[in-house]
């Protein structure tokens, strides 16, 4: 056990990083656009979280493979092109062979392409590290992102419609806080969550 711990310490640190210290949403504040739209329901948050994790891992892995060939000035364009091409191809395969999944995830595809986390991890990590570390980092960032999405969506769905994953939790007399299902609600919950987490973990923003 100890031997495994020693060998994989670097992996473990990268994992911890992505989930906690460098959590993409709470600390680095990336990937906001999409997290606001999809956290209105828990099922959307789970689908989006898994989708982003998959895309981050795969695209970062690919970028990590060709990292020595990308000229510095066109890094951003390269990331965008690779990520979009990858997401579109995945979407086409889903539409052809798993049409029911494709129609369920259809709207997320556009959101994943523009998700800053995918680009952020490519720039901050994938282009500087070998593939095995990149995969762990991609997984960690994706999971950190999914965790935050889950928390926000649980609060929003409960308050907006009294349900969780479609199952009625709140009593029938609960007046639906419709504001929680539209964008401002997402902003408020996210802001409060970041406040809470920062007070708890003492990772303040130094001015």
């Amino acid at each position, binding site marked *: 056990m100890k031997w495994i711990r020693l060998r994989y310490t670097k992996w473990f640190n990268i994992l911890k990083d992505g989930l906690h210290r460098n959590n993409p949403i709470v600390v680095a504040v990336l990937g906001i656009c999409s997290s606001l739209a999809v956290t209105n*329901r828990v099922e959307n948050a789970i689908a989006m979280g898994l989708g982003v994790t998959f895309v981050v891992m795969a695209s970062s892995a690919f970028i990590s493979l060709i990292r020595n060939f990308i000229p510095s000035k066109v890094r951003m364009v390269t990331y965008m092109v690779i990520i979009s091409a990858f997401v579109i*191809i995945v979407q*086409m395969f889903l539409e052809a062979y798993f*049409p029911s999944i494709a129609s369920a995830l259809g*709207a997320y595809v556009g959101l994943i392409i523009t998700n800053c986390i995918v680009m952020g991890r490519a720039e901050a990590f994938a282009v500087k590290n070998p593939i095995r570390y990149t995969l762990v980092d991609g997984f960690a960032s994706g999971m950190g992102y999914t965790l935050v999405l889950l928390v926000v969506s649980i609060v929003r769905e409960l308050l907006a419609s009294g349900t969780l994953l479609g199952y009625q939790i709140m009593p029938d007399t609960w007046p639906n806080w419709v504001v929680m299902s539209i964008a401002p609600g997402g902003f408020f919950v996210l802001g409060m969550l970041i406040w809470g987490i920062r007070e708890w973990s003492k990772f303040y923003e130094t001015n």
Partner: protein
Amino acid sequence: MKQNLKLIVFVLILGLLTSGLLVGVDALTRDRIEQNKIAQLKAAVLDANRVSYNFGNIHSVFDDEIETIVIDELTFYLHTASGNVSYTFIGGGVWGPISGVVTLEDDFETIVAIKVLKQEETPGLGGIIAEAKYLANFVGIKMVPSLQINKDSSANQPNEVDAITGATRTSEAFEIIMNDQYDMYRAAWDSRNE
């Protein structure tokens, strides 16, 4: 200069490679995606008319029960047993096109069923436009004088449906799509009977 040249060459190669890849995958999957779309369309029409089928015989059942009529380049699907007529609609939603199948009774005014096959609205909000639970509100509603999707809480007239709470723009867009497409198909359908 040499630096810039290298840059341009790299971007060109990247662009060509990825475009080639995309075009390739598109060619590979295009047929299957078309078939899936046709199957979805047929399933929507058959479901609205409560005809049972399974994955294996959907095409033969469709051919048996539904008569496809083309008037002025518009396609109508007539269920010969009941007289219900279906047509596909498409129009602009908030984030992207919304398309699906509308089935009307033989008076061409009363809605039997609406099924939304493709949309790109906000999941869980505008996306409710595609959910069976919301679309059930349209059953029995009349398309004349025009379909109204309203936010007010007054008692609904036979041509009124409640909008989706919190998704005003999608509801508005859907109302416009429904009415515009209906007018177009109505004109063609009426000209058939003349």
